[in-house]
């Protein structure tokens, strides 16, 4: 308990005091981007590390949150009654499409960034978990979802910006994003969101529900025999993870100034997972730290030797998972009841 409080305190100090002092504007805005990925990772850690659901479609939820936010900001940039620039160029629309209109309202848009992904996850999860689609089937389906969603977005260029995505976002609820001071503000918002999400995950993990989730991961049938419905247990984790991804996507937009299908398809979705595996999938801090480390390594390596990054990324997928399934966190045996390594997913073997 004390250790956890200490952990939060140290993290908060690092994020709010040390980083802004040490890093320049450019590096700080990069860190804001990494923190967005870390928020996704916290959710993945919950769904995959604790719940055993390898969610390879987090890009979809990240994208839903990001687009919801970007749509509002584009509308705000354009001003009331005007169409966003790209619609005039590529869509030749006379009026705003009906499904854009509600996003002009900031409160609706803000709620949508989190609730929309959660709603989609809920519907999808109901369909998938109720029918006991799990393990590899679930992973592949979630991957196909990411592919389909990206293709759908790209196909509707006039209303979604197509491959370009939504770019050139100038303001954030009235604040000029070109101003470095406001960029710092965005960083602080992202950092605060990450801390809050870590708090949420912490609460979930140590609650009775958290115990149940791990039980479902380790022996779904046994939990069913105990009288619980594993589908509901999984659904909660999946929906929460989707909400976190949505929040991350929403914050990514002001932090980076763009949201595009390039962040949604199969490849980015699987990249969201790698940091989690490296950091330690079943721990609280591991996924976030892993995601930040991997994103940082990508920037650092690709600035020096571009082609080496791909090899390194490949090795990141291979070495930790094969030889250190608990992730880096397993090196530090902090916790007494460390459930870092799932006790073999043999039982996950697609039931015949």
């Amino acid at each position, binding site marked *: 308990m004390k250790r956890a409080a200490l952990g939060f305190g140290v993290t908060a100090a690092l994020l709010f005091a040390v980083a802004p002092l040490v890093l320049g504007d450019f590096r700080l805005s990069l860190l804001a981007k990494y923190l967005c990925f870390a928020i996704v990772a916290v959710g993945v850690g919950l769904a995959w590390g604790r719940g055993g659901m390898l969610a390879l479609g987090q890009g979809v939820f990240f994208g839903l949150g990001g687009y919801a936010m970007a749509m509002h900001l584009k509308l705000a940039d354009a001003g009331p009654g005007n169409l966003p620039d790209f619609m005039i160029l*590529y869509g030749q629309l006379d009026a705003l499409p009906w499904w854009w209109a509600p996003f002009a309202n900031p409160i609706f848009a803000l709620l949508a960034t989190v609730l929309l992904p959660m709603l989609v996850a809920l519907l999808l999860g109901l369909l998938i978990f109720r029918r006991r689609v799990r393990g590899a089937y679930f992973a592949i389906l979630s991957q196909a979802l990411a592919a389909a969603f990206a293709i759908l977005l790209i*196909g509707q260029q006039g209303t979604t910006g*197509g491959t370009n*995505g939504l770019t050139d976002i*100038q303001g954030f609820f009235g604040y000029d994003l070109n101003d470095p001071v406001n960029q710092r503000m965005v960083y602080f918002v992202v950092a605060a969101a990450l801390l809050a999400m870590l708090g949420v995950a912490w609460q979930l993990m140590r609650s009775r529900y958290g115990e149940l989730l791990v039980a479902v991961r380790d022996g779904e049938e046994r939990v069913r025999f105990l009288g619980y419905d594993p589908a509901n247990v999984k659904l909660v984790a999946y929906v929460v993870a989707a909400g976190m991804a949505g929040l991350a996507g929403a914050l990514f937009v002001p932090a*980076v100034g763009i949201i595009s299908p*390039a962040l949604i398809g199969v490849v980015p979705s699987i990249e969201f997972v790698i940091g989690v595996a490296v950091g330690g999938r079943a721990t609280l801090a591991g996924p976030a730290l892993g995601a930040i480390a991997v994103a940082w390594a990508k920037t650092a390596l*690709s600035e020096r030797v571009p082609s080496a990054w791909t090899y390194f990324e490949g090795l990141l997928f291979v070495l930790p998972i094969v030889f250190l399934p608990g992730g880096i966190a397993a090196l530090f045996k902090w916790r007494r009841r460390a459930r870092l390594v799932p006790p073999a997913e043999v039982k996950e073997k697609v039931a015949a």
Partner: protein
Amino acid sequence: MFGYRGRRSAAVLVAIGTVAALTACGAKTGDAVGSAQAGGGAVVDTSGSAVKVGLLNSLSGTMAISEVTVRDAIKLAVDEINAAGGVLGKQLEPVSEDGASDWPTFAEKAQKLISQDKVAAVFGCWTSSSRKAVKPVFEKNKALLFYPVQYEGLEESPYIFYTGATTNQQIVPALDYLKSAGKTSVYLVGSDYVFPRTANKIIKAYAAASGMKVLGEDYAPLGSTEFSTIVNKVKASGASAVFNTLNGDSNVAFFKEYKSAGLTAEAMPVLSVSIAEEEVKSIGTQYLAGQLTAWNYYQTTKGAANDKFVKAYKAKYGADKPTSDPMEAAYTSVYLWKAMVEKAGSFEIEKVKAAANAGGITFEAPEGLVTVDGPSQHVFKTARIGKIGTDGLIEEVWNSGQPVKPDPYLKSYSWATGLS
């Protein structure tokens, strides 16, 4: 439990407090003072004996295929300029960054080149998506980008120079050519992204005004390699030509399918706007011979400047490496920037821009004499239609006679009103 919760809430409160305090200082949108203070303009580092220039291309990922050749061409120009004494007495130091075929990465790397390396100008980007992603970065920092690829027009950023063709220098002449060759109907095939969709919109407007028929329009997702249905549709349409705006890998699958379906260059020629010498090499002349392309430059383009360029390129990168339009435009862009800097007598970005906007920046490029159009920051270019030969080279069969004035919004074409 409660103790812990209390602390966490406290932490969050502190966070929110910090945020609130900070927001008080930030500039609001539309706040002129704030904006000026925010982006005082990128500062070029001219303190050393060398000046840095940025090269921003995808060196990994799907676009690496094309963009690496552009990077090579830029490097060639930089080397030549350095060997000849540099610019304003300073050597150029290229800083190459990898956009990794990922648009947010392009934006990140552009910012890095501007604020960390303090480059005098950035050369690169290929896809429209990458350009759209970096455009706000260059505008915000008031830094310069030279964009070397033909594109869909409808853009005039004050901080971008466009050295590739805009639509009225490639698409429109290509349509003029098809019309003059007696092709009365076309089928449109393209990849699903900005350039093909915009190009096809222009083609449809042109066709409507000139009596040409558009018999169908199909888009394949980028990277798609399954074309049997689209080719079936094309074949059934009986169009007299196909206008092809497919990109990358899709072209290979499309042309293989096209030939399999028994369609030939004689009966139903395909006019492509994204297939240059490099792509011909990877698709194979077995499938491409006789098909048409529309560009502003071919390796076979006549002239002493091109002979020198081709020779230098092959000497540096290998005799089997072809030169192509985007490479030539990238090579030219470095020399155009040099001319601007020399005219301005300074590396300072606003002065360089002012020198260019005043007009009179020219360069004897491999494609012929190119002139920068001051106001639009585009370049006058000669349109050329080529036919792909069995040797993998493209021979010019038609050209526009003189360099065409760039018109990114097609304002001078009556049929194009309402397009932009």
